[in-house]
């Protein structure tokens, strides 16, 4: 078991013929992912990396029954690609693209919500279900199958945690990078609810960062006694400066939410163990599973 993607996922890549798209499609395939189609308007009918290319997602889906799409198209066109996938009935969309204008994303997100479709990202590293399938850019070799679920707002920190766990012999079910942008698809809440329901996941690691209040919302709405699995939290940016604020308006909206302290406290109130370093996170995860982290190589 796992969440979101598995060996059974039929993966479409939008922007497969581009530089990033083709490099990472190759990586995904070499990880064993079932990549069934690519979409590049105007290149329909060709084949790349052994994958058939279509002009539109509708066409690709009709022929291949793709149910997951990974999006690697450039930022000015990425919101449109997300909506195309949603309108065509793709059930899970993973948008890797960074730098999408926020108004584009606000609209695309409303569109995806109306379509009742799951979106991960944008500006995210994607999803790996260890030893089964990968949609995105998480390096292949760092993953190891096991029973820890990871959900993270930070791309590269996710890699740190995965690598740390794997090196300590603590394997993962699914690792999900939800992305670092202000406007996201699924948030901690929704992904944690999936982990809660996943029988194979025995502990969950949440990697948050300053800004917004998604960590607080997850702590209040999903975590707590009913969650039923150990949760290990980590918040980056504790020593970061307040950073740029969006004038008065931003302060009026965000109030006191979004600081590292607010997030750490909310997670602790919900019973999570909040760690100060990635090394501690790894050790805590091992302990939660009853594996002494130093000697747990299976």
């Amino acid at each position, binding site marked *: 078991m796992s969440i979101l993607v598995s060996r059974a996922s039929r993966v479409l890549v939008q922007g497969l013929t581009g530089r990033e798209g083709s490099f*990472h499609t190759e990586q995904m395939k070499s990880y064993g992912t079932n990549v069934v189609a690519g979409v590049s308007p105007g290149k329909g009918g060709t084949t790349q990396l052994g994958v058939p290319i279509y002009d539109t997602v509708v066409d690709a889906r009709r022929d291949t029954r793709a149910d997951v799409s990974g999006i690697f198209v450039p930022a000015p066109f990425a919101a449109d690609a997300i909506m195309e996938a949603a309108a065509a009935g793709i059930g899970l969309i993973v948008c890797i693209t960074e730098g999408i204008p926020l108004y584009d994303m606000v609209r695309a997100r409303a569109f995806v919500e109306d379509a009742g479709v799951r979106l991960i990202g944008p500006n995210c590293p994607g999803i790996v279900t260890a030893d089964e399938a990968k949609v995105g850019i998480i390096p292949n070799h760092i993953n190891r199958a096991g029973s820890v679920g990871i959900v993270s707002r930070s791309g590269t920190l996710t890699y740190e945690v995965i690598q740390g766990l794997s090196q300590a012999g603590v394997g993962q079910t699914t690792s999900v990078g939800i992305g670092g942008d202000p406007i996201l698809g699924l948030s901690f809440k929704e992904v944690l609810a999936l982990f809660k329901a996943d029988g194979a996941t025995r502990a969950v690691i949440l990697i948050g960062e300053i800004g917004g209040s998604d960590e607080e919302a997850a702590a209040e709405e999903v975590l707590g006694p009913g969650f039923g699995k150990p949760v290990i939290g980590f918040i980056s940016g504790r020593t970061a400066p307040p950073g740029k604020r969006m004038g008065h308006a931003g302060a009026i909206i965000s109030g006191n939410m979004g600081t590292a302290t607010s997030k750490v406290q909310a997670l602790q109130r919900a019973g999570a163990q909040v760690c100060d370093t990635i090394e501690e996170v790894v050790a805590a995860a091992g302990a939660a599973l009853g594996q002494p982290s130093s000697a747990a190589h299976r």
Partner: protein
Amino acid sequence: MKFLEYQVKERFKAAGIPVPDGRLARTPDEAALAAGALGPVAVKAQVPVGGRGKAGGIKLARTPMDAKRAAGEILGMTIKGYPVREVWCETAQEITHELYLGLTLDRDARKPVLILSAQGGMEIEEVAEHHPEAIAKLHPDPWRGPLPFEVRDLIFRAGLGPLQAQLGPLIIKLYALARTYDALTLEVNPLALTRDGGLVAADGKLEIDENAMFRHKDLHGADESDEDPIEAEAKRRKLTYVRLDGSIGVIGNGAGLVMNTLDLVQREGGRAANFLDIGGGAKAEVVHSALELLASDPQVKGILINIFGGITRGDEVAHGIIDAARELNLKLPLVVRMTGTREEEGRRLLQEAGITPEASATAAARKVVELAATGQR
């Protein structure tokens, strides 16, 4: 991208949002001419930061001579590090009441939000904290924008019903302007009610989404070249850089990883000189450029590069580091931690160039703090 007050007001005017008549002046004589044409004026320093009123950057002038004197005092002031090079002279308003009207993106609601309050002016953040009921909000559907009935409801909730006929169209125009410019923030504060019952945008703030600049290639915002020279240079190089007050230069890929690197440096007893994120998929040139930037900062005593490649490739990063170190003849301690996509190639290249990558981010942070403290290479 940020704009000066007069640049924002020009856009308000073009969008049909009423603003006071005004003229830009670069010398005291130009300010006198403006006052001659406009009558009594407010002479306002044009700087891309708030708080200029408290700093003495706004003066009232009844006559051209007054205006000349006021401009003479303000031009040449430095406000929060920005020398004042221009003043905006605008017709003095007889303001009877100050409202607040603003638009931003509400990341928790995943929607834009319009904010209206009958209590505007300087202290709006305090109003928000202590009298949240005095602040009315509307989250327009991002496809539909604010609908007339929603705007009416907002106005009545803010207790501004009698201004409905004027305020409704103004709010809809403000939203359209924000959409046109991909504004992250667009504020009218104060939105002034004048003695004759009219509404006028007495001050304005506009900040544009950098990600949307491909739609606004012809836009020119405030000249921010007066700010910290390294920040300005970073902007020219399109690097995501924030100046901090420590001595360890930090480069990493991904905001979370860089923030965590700052935390690690602090845990090891050092303090970072900056936040510098080269983002995802950076090529050798970007790494080169980032390293060059930090090397030019006299505050930096050691540099830590922390790369975990996903979409970023180790070999690309290694090429950038090696080329830059050679070209710059880098004398500072340089510690690299590199893992992830193409890490083997990257690490091999570095080692061939005499740079031994550290095993972990923690180890790398410890090393750079140690080297910077002792001044070793």
